[in-house]
């Protein structure tokens, strides 16, 4: 696990840039006290001290999101998707099926595309998570985002973050994919507006842009 200590922050909740969520879950969820009481159960304990987080209790986890480290308390049942959207205000990650059947919530976990809806936040403990927002360079679009703009690879835009993350994951693994590889890499992302051909072309364009073309 790569640590990025220079980004470490003590506070638990990141204030989203430009978003509308403005809320500290620790103070409003009503489970904060319980959460604090069981904090540290999971981290840094020797193997023999297996401790059980009971229903309604929270566990302390460390999530590395877009290069920043966050310590926070989560209920074991919370999905990573819920935590990203409703606690961090990272609403680039979309909610659409919550059953691993559409890909709108695709994020990279240790550079690999996965569904945030089917990942418990507690299981993402210690992992590197990249969301759509993490592809931005300040206010500038990343190459995959730019390619989606150029190729008009979306309509309503709701599945688009997931499509972009799937392509980003592909290119991190294979910087020069062919058309069929691009189609396969995005075959876990439903686009109900149906612009798949444009998405595949955007993936190839993104590969070019990443190579500086």
């Amino acid at each position, binding site marked *: 696990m790569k640590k990025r200590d220079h980004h470490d922050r003590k506070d638990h909740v990141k204030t989203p840039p430009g978003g509308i969520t403005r809320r500290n879950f620790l103070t409003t969820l009503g489970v904060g006290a319980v959460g604090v009481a069981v904090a540290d159960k999971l981290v840094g304990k020797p193997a023999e001290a297996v401790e059980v987080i009971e229903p309604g209790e929270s566990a302390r986890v460390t999530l590395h999101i877009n290069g920043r480290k966050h310590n926070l308390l989560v209920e074991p049942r919370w999905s990573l998707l819920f935590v990203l959207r409703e606690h961090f205000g990272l609403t680039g990650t979309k909610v659409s099926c919550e059953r691993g059947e559409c890909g709108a919530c695709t994020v990279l976990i240790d550079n690999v*595309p996965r569904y945030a809806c089917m990942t418990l936040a507690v299981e993402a403990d210690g992992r590197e998570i990249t969301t759509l927002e993490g592809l931005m360079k300040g206010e500038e679009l990343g190459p995959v985002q730019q390619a989606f703009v150029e190729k008009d690879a979306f309509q309503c835009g709701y599945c688009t973050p997931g499509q972009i993350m799937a392509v980003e994951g592909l290119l991190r693994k294979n910087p020069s994919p062919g058309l069929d590889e691009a189609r396969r*890499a995005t*075959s*876990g992302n439903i686009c109900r507006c149906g612009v798949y051909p444009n998405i595949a072309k955007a993936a190839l364009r993104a590969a070019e842009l990443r190579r500086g073309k």
Partner: protein
Amino acid sequence: MLPSFSYVRPGTLSDAVKQAASEGAGVLAGGTDLLGCMRDGILPLTKLVSMSGVKDLRGIAKRSDGVLTIGSLTTITEVAEDKLVRESHPALSMAASEVASPQLRNQGTIGGNLCQKPRCWYYRGDFHCLRKGGERCFAAAGQNPYHCIFGGGPCFIVHPSDTAPALVAFGASVRTSGPKGERTIPVEKFHVLPSVDVRKDTVLEPGEIVIAVELPPAPKEAKSLYRKVRARNSWDFALAGAAIVLTMSDHIVTSASIVLSGAAPVPWRSKATEDAITGKRLDDKVIAKAADEAIRGAMPLAQNGYKLHLFRGIIREELKKLA
């Protein structure tokens, strides 16, 4: 939204086994199936035992005796892309690359793929069916186009795994660890027919955890493939499929292993098809006979009679490729 459960993340396999043996516990590996089942309210689990703290269950290695061991937490993507698997057991590689969707392959594990719950829409849906302790199988007289033609009754699910038929075809085994210690179970004997126990998917005992899959070496001259037909080209489970492993000498089939997916509540080995080609040259006549043998004894339901044509078609098409 998931109901509450307790959560534990043991750091050792023995602790995981202990935790998993407790009442209401479920083993959480990739979670792609387990969490879906919990969302749908069909697994009343009260505790999840996370395997993410247990080391050494992930990865593929060749033992000195030539057996490939695949740690149970190895992802489906890792199985699909592994060079060793691709070279020696292409059918498994092909099967793994046809599973679900890329993201689910990145997350789901080989152990989980073998232990997954059936995909019957009544079982997964809001129906209190036999498999969930209810009184009836809704598929028997209901909407059953995706159900079984072999081995059915009193429940008519098909086994959803793509990798399991390939593993059966290669004679693979499952290594488990449980309260009574470790054991090895051939994949062919790993799954349970509903006529034996309608509530059980596998022979795993409470607390028993799959730790590895062991894949014996395939003969150098072996040819293998996995073919999957589905209603849609991503996510979908097999309408019908086949894992075929053949060895041939001088164009004569010297050994054959043919396992059907989408056919039965368990990966369905078709000995009749194997027999129809063993010792023979794969000419049109033999292939036609083999295709007919593949569906001998099938008991289609009202809406899945097409599977008779489909399995014959698959066997014909794929044997021609291998001939």
